[in-house]
């Protein structure tokens, strides 16, 4: 494992949030006791700690609902920790396919907007956008509304936007699995050059193949708790031994 400087430090991270369930108490009880509104506290992360160093590529495993995506939202600064702390060397960029930016606008317009949201100024966009469009290889589809895109096309777009700013710390949540072979090769090349430049990658995936190919270290989350942390192939083996894998 590389011994670069620490780029992400997580200490005793807890994350809780409220959700509303469909099972609620009667209206009278909701008013008289102030409870039973269906509000439940979800304890998504229960004291997670780890250090990640520059140049490291870390795969995050775990069954559905184990807290992987929540961890990434927290690491991207999009969810505040309930307790504990997250220290970073530079601001991590999150790449997921779930988030639709502006569904009615074209791919090209979404690229523009995404770059601006990342903090670029309008007058430095033209050059960057050209590169992003070229990387996506979407051709004329780039002028079509985002809502008409397949998940693979969306993944190309999101990946190209998120890596355009050359982030030092990149968090990829399931965004590569939906791409075709050509895109996976390209994205892998880009990730590798990022790692070579002392970047840091964290990847959530349910494809053990992909994790094994792209990552050297593995972190296994289960029910909001860190179950294992070590070389990726060993962690995968441990994970699969429990029969929890779905790949």
């Amino acid at each position, binding site marked *: 494992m590389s011994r670069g400087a*620490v780029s992400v430090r997580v200490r005793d991270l807890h994350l809780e949030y409220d959700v509303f369930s469909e099972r609620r108490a009667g209206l009278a009880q909701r008013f008289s006791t102030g409870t039973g509104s269906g509000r439940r506290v979800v304890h998504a992360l229960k004291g997670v700690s780890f250090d990640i160093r520059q140049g490291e590529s870390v795969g995050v495993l775990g069954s559905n609902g184990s807290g992987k995506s929540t961890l990434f939202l927290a690491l991207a600064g999009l969810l505040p920790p309930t307790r504990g702390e997250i220290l970073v060397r530079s601001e991590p960029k999150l790449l997921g396919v779930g988030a639709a930016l502006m569904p009615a606008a074209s791919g090209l317009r979404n690229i523009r907007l*995404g770059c601006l949201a990342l903090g670029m100024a309008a007058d430095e966009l033209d050059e960057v956008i050209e590169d992003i469009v070229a990387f996506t290889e979407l051709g004329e589809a780039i002028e079509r509304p985002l809502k008409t895109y397949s998940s693979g096309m969306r993944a190309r777009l999101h990946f190209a936007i998120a890596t355009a700013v050359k982030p030092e710390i990149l968090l990829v949540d399931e965004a590569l699995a939906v791409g075709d072979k050509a895109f996976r090769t390209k994205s892998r090349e880009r990730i590798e050059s990022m790692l070579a430049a002392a970047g840091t990658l964290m990847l959530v995936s349910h494809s053990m193949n992909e994790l094994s190919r792209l990552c050297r270290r593995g972190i296994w989350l289960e029910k909001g708790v860190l179950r294992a942390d070590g070389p990726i192939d060993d962690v995968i083996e441990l994970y699969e031994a429990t029969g929890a894998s779905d790949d």
Partner: protein
Amino acid sequence: MDVSEVSADSTPGGESDGLRPLTATVSARQYLRDIWARRDFTFALPFEELRSSHLDTFLGNVWHLGNPLLSAGVYYLVFAHILNVDRGIDNYIVWLVIGVFAYHLTSSSILGGAKAIDNRQGLMRSFRFPRAIVPISNTIGHLLTFGFQLLVVVLVALGSGVGPSRRWLALPLVLLLHTMLNLGGAFVAARLNDAFRDIEQLIPFVLRLLQYTSGVMFSVDRVLAGDNVWAQRIITLNPIVAILDCYRWMILGTPLRPGALGIAIIESIALLVFGFRFFRAAEHSYGKP
């Protein structure tokens, strides 16, 4: 290296040079600076929204102007030809259309502010930026729509024999006052609705109540001249009355009430400052699952 099955209390140690906390609360000044740094994003958002809002229609962008023109046409048809009322107001149709459009700017900004956080969930889950940008760009978006409506008002005014006037030059100041009020309202509505989704259901009724005390469809003069003290107080304190007066003064030359205008200015600034602080106090909780 071997795999360690980690227990919850194991904390790797080590140097922490160059590391900084990810979510730290920034000062108001820094927060405003962060918003300013994303100004291109703040403006691009409503423009993109506007551009793509009629993409799936045959007439496309024509609807930005067509929509308010048809509204004005309906009012003209109903009030001038079917009901034949002018409520004792000269140029009633122009007067009415100004009121309806300007009031709609406030109501849509507030209702839009309430819904904005939810509507922008995708952006907020993907990118980090000061969350105040969401209600701000929403308010700018409604202001853009209002621009087309103002154009229609001017067209209708010119068509009904009202000439251009130097008073039109006051437009930027009036828009500034109006926007401070709308943005303040949008900030408050955004945070309230994020905490209690029930608010969104209540806002339309509050807005309708507000509409009837704002002199949108009829003049407040008769109430002010009457003897219902409470009604007079409500109307004097309602900043929207004074703001509608400004627009009507600009286009039609109807009188302004300086006292009420002064109150409206103070209220708008106060609402904006309060709204901004109120919204910001929950900065990190917007966009939670």
